[in-house]
């Protein structure tokens, strides 16, 4: 399968089976985790010993995070999720209905995973929320019991489309490669059309994001997918050329000269109003964006459980996030001005 944006996995085709490689890019190593996808009823290849075999199409998933729910939802197989790490942060109506009906079980996450419960459920695969480099110790009992454990490292991708492209992995697991690829292509087209509009904008307003905590301001570095979104939306983000894919930890003072004059303050954090912001720290009233009210947070789609759909469906719908950002930063550039994930702080 052709992958155009994601770098963290690969699917190769062989006679009678497919091979998934989860590439460990984080440590700059070449070692990979391999899985064989074998159609049900077909004998597993004998020349690849020691590689876990996943029987496809997978009929039952145990997943660990809301991102995995979003990936499954995109592929149209959210109803095949039988186990979920935590019930706390879920938006998908299908999965919430499953929880209500008792069809989805809470398995616990990371080291708190209830191995006995998961083993008794006989899932086709467990999608873990970890990086390929991490110790797999907590999943040992599951792997010993013959349950394939596959890490989802979509969050290590450096572009929004790269993250979203992990839907193709789920597509391969459920034998829906073509339909998922087609759906993903429409996301790509929408995103690239928007990015062309955003990056061609004449005015590039200065943007700051996040909120400092205890004097340290964590900002996405140049290679972070958040930075890519800002770039594509036609924002002037002063740290867009910094190295690294994670975040920069800067002092408040290092950011202050920009923050005081920035046109927009986005992704502010756990605040819902201007008063919230002042309650966190009255110094923010000195920011230009605070005075003009150019404050936006991505918490429009927070449900009754306090769960934010930005972190769920937003992962597979980067075009909606990008459209929001363009509407905020360049009013009038897109036909209509209704925001999907974002809302202004009053």
């Amino acid at each position, binding site marked *: 399968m052709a992958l155009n944006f994601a770098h963290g996995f690969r699917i190769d085709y062989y006679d009678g089976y497919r091979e998934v490689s989860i590439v460990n890019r984080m440590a700059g190593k070449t070692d990979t985790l391999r899985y064989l996808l074998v159609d049900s009823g077909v004998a597993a290849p004998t020349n690849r010993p020691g590689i876990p075999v996943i029987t496809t199409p997978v009929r039952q998933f145990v997943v660990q995070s809301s991102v995995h729910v979003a990936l499954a939802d995109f592929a149209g197989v959210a109803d095949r999720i039988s186990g979920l790490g935590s019930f*706390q942060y879920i938006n998908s109506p299908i999965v919430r209905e499953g929880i209500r009906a008792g069809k989805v079980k809470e398995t616990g996450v990371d080291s*708190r995973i209830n191995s006995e419960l998961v083993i008794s459920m006989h899932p086709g695969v467990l999608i873990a929320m970890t990086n390929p480099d991490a110790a797999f110790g907590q999943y040992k009992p599951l792997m010993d019991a013959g349950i394939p454990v596959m890490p989802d490292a979509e969050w290590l991708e450096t572009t929004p489309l790269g993250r979203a492209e992990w839907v193709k992995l789920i597509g391969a697991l459920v034998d829906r490669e073509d339909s998922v690829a087609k759906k993903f292509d429409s996301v790509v087209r929408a995103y690239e059309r928007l990015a062309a509009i955003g990056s061609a904008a004449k005015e590039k307003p200065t943007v700051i994001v996040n909120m400092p*905590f*205890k*004097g*340290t301001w964590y900002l996405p570095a140049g290679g972070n997918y958040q930075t890519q979104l800002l770039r594509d939306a036609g924002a002037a983000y002063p740290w867009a050329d910094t190295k690294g894919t994670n975040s*920069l*930890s*800067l*002092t*408040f*003072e*290092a950011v*202050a*000269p920009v923050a*005081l*004059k920035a046109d927009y303050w986005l992704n502010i954090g*756990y*605040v819902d109003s201007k008063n*919230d912001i*002042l*309650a*966190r*720290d*009255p*110094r923010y009233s*000195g920011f230009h964006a605070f005075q003009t009210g150019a404050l936006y947070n991505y918490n429009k789609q927070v449900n009754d459980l*306090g769960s934010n759909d930005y972190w769920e469906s937003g992962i597979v719908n980067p075009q909606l996030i990008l459209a929001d950002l363009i509407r905020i930063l360049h009013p009038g550039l897109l036909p209509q001005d209704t925001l999907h994930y974002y809302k202004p702080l009053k």
Partner: protein
Amino acid sequence: MRSSIRRFRLGGLLLLLVLAFLLDLSSGPVRIPLREICHILFSRGSGDQTWAFIVRSIRLPKAITAVLAGCGLSVSGLQMQTMFRNPLAEPGVLGITAGASFGVAAVMLSGGGMATLYAIRELGSPGSWLIAIAACIGAGLVMLLVLALSSRLRDNVLMLVIGLMMNSITVALTSIWQYFSNPEEVKEYLLWTFGSLGGVTGSQLYILMAIVCIGLTIVFLCSKLLDALLLGENYARSMGLTVKRARVIIVCSTSLLAGSITAFCGPIGFIGIAVPHLARLLFNTSGHRILMPASCLIGAILLLACDCIAQWPGTQTVLPINIITSLVGAPVVIYLLVRKKNLNIYR
């Protein structure tokens, strides 16, 4: 040492404090000339808005916090060393800081419920009161426990072992809480444990200032009491001092100081243990009328200096203050141990 020399040295320390304060105000990732800083501090004139914001709203609160925390932590260390008659006593060693951390964890991680967390955040400054009170109560409870056990044991080494045990019990309780909390809350809590002087602003700074001033006033008023305790409880009793009451006063002031500072700045290590020894070394006395102000001054200077080191010139990032104080403090203690070969100054 003659009292005129001591007065001279105290004066010298005061001058050093002023210099350290100015150095701290002028160090940071943004270069601002000292003349501009003085201009911003002492006049209401406009000038460069960004510079004014940085000096007035970022550097000044941080420097004031450093002075408050430096004074409070070193004085509570001094008090505890005297009360336990143990040269290694300090809030961090005897579990007082861990008790305060437990109080903070109880509020920050409050049952793992997002709703409660939102409620606390929305409370704003009442929320910071809540954290401060929880930290003081946590600190006080651990200290009372240690004290209750210490009245049964007269051995200094046993006392320290008990303190360490209390420490590990409290840390374990906090860990249980962390284990069952959300990653976001745990992250926030972990960042807090690194310690920071830059996060105390606005009403929080006033709260911290009020609590530290109350604590310090109590401490200074009872410096005679500490002198008497130093000579032994029997002597103190013969002087007509109710030892129990003295202990209650010391417990209160220490948990106020260590608790509130830990709540706002995180657990800052080594200031409490290193500074009183430095003060004794410099003034060659065990009289608290000298040691108290000396510890205050040295503690404030040391923490200001650590803050300057933490934001090494030319970098945009800042190292957590707790790392710097430990890196600076530990060698000091080792040096003292090696040089004096004996820290038991209470004979």
